[in-house]
């Protein structure tokens, strides 16, 4: 930001730096805590500098061999569960929304407006309202405690459908006509023209949905019953044994850091693709 006076410039920077500190400091503390022993952490004041137990804590977390009375589920296994469900949810949402937006925008069929509004109305239903019935259905279908149960109910997405619908409406009509004259049928047009043109939207949505899928807490809590199907966010909670029992905080902190890494990696990696897509776009 370039302000008109040096004073305002300094002020803007000061505010931004303050904001970064407020957000980054707890993360830093978590990292520091993950490198000390649990006794170091619970005896105030905890040192602000990293300790020497990094490898020990992280291996304990990964293999599930930490002490304390909380859950000892191996974080490695839980990260895999989280990774798998986040990927399936993100890719599933994107594929389904692309196809439904395509149908709504490019085809005329009986009940078209009805389906459009039906999708729209699902946006108005909060998760808490539908979670009971959804659980019932998943249980009846025997999908409890499985990858299918973790991912399938979360895949339909009205927001993504609308995003793609808005984008498809900006694609010039003549492109469709040129493709028709070239002999491309609807699915050919979809695959060769529409999807490549949507790549920025797809990249953006992938990031958002991956993080959404990764951070899922309520639904996995309901649907999973065995430790080896827990996503990592549930794992963190369960490691914190309540009451008087001792919690292995260093391992908890290490798990938290491990849990943050994949979403951060996704955002950083996809950012390049975003920017490239934004720079390239032009009709």
């Amino acid at each position, binding site marked *: 930001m370039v302000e008109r006076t040096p004073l305002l410039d300094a002020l803007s920077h000061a505010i931004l730096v303050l904001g970064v500190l407020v957000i980054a400091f707890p993360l830093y503390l978590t990292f520091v805590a993950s490198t000390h022993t649990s006794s170091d952490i619970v005896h105030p004041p905890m040192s602000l500098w990293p300790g020497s137990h990094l490898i020990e804590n992280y291996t304990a977390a990964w293999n599930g061999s930490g002490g304390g009375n909380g859950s000892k589920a191996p974080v490695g296994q839980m990260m895999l569960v989280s990774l798998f469900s986040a990927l399936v949810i993100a890719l599933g949402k994107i594929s389904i929304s692309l196809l439904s937006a395509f149908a709504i925008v490019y085809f005329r069929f009986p009940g078209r407006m009805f389906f459009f509004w039906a999708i729209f109305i699902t946006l108005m239903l909060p998760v808490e309202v539908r979670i009971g019935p959804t659980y019932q259905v998943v249980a009846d279908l025997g999908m409890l405690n499985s990858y299918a149960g973790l991912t399938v109910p979360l895949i339909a997405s009205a927001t993504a459908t609308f995003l793609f619908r808005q984008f498809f409406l900006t694609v*010039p009509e*003549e*492109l469709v*006509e*040129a*493709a*028709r*004259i*070239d*002999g*491309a049928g609807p699915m*050919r047009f979809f695959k*060769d*023209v529409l999807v*490549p*043109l949507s790549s920025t939207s797809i990249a953006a949505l992938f990031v958002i949905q991956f993080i959404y899928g990764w951070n899922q807490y309520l639904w996995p809590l309901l649907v999973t019953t065995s430790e080896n199907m827990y996503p990592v966010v549930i794992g963190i909670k369960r490691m914190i044994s309540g009451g008087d029992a001792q919690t292995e905080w260093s391992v908890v902190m290490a798990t938290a850091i491990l849990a943050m890494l994949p979403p951060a990696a996704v955002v950083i990696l996809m950012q390049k693709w975003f920017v490239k897509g934004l720079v*390239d776009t*032009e*009709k």
Partner: protein
Amino acid sequence: MASISLQHLIKRYGIGKSANQVIHGVSAEVADGEFVVIVGPSGCGKSTLLRMVAGLEEITGGQVKIGNRVVNDLEPAERDIAMVFQNYALYPHMSVFENMAYGLKIAKVPAAEIRQRVDKAAAILEILPFLQRKPRELSGGQRQRVAMGRAIVRQPQVFLFDEPLSNLDAKLRAQTRLEIQKLHRELGITSLFVTHDQVEAMTLAQRMMVMNNGVMEQFGTPEEVYNRPATTFVASFIGSPPMNLLKQAPDARPGTITGVRPEHLDIGPTGWALKVEAVELLGAERLVYGRWQHGGDEVVVLRTDESHTVPGLGQTICVQPRPGKIHWFDTVSGQRKEAP
């Protein structure tokens, strides 16, 4: 290459009482290899007509034949046509080569032949250096040539042009017009060219279709349309400034409008008496606006060149229409009437 036959084409939007008919029974025969221009003001239905031939609009009534086939129910890709759009309609994420090759790829033409056809078309249009570029890296004129290249590689029976020059600046328009003419001389493919610009129509057409409000008012060569316009609309649409359509000319025939083009009125010692109202100097020529000396509020426009002195404002001049260059149109129907 093939002839095109339009038989009593009708286009209606909607059904029942609120239906809106926009094309009212247009019939025309286009010969094999002919370059026909469909010209008319905005909203006259010319693009709709073209799109009906292309298969992008449904045909409500009548028939379109390409070659000997009735194509009413065929998809655009099955009609053996190629279209050049006003906004080029190039696939933005594909290179120029891929844009031109796309239709052939879908038709499963072997890669070697695709390469050969694209290279040949690119050579004709002088876009060989651009084959690997994306459309956004090209100028408007280059994009339009790519769009034409895409049409050429299909080796269709018919070319359809939908106002392809409208998005280009004036200089580029003139240049591309010449290129289109050259292309037609070289390839000789039957072409339908839609435009609202009468200059494009006059220069490009072997025959032109003048349309107004969904009706084809005249279909003839540029000379015929210019020298023997069939209706008052055609008379005033072609020619700039438009033909004078006069109700109050001195030796008028009853029930007719007298038509004379500004370039066919000569200032002389005798003739129609006009009081000069305004003069516009255009460099090589002048436009003189005058009203009848005998009264009335009709304005008559004439063109004179440098050989005459500029008439002063308020001055009375006499203009003589050239023999054989007077037209008569029925006052009510606007239809042409022959000389008495």
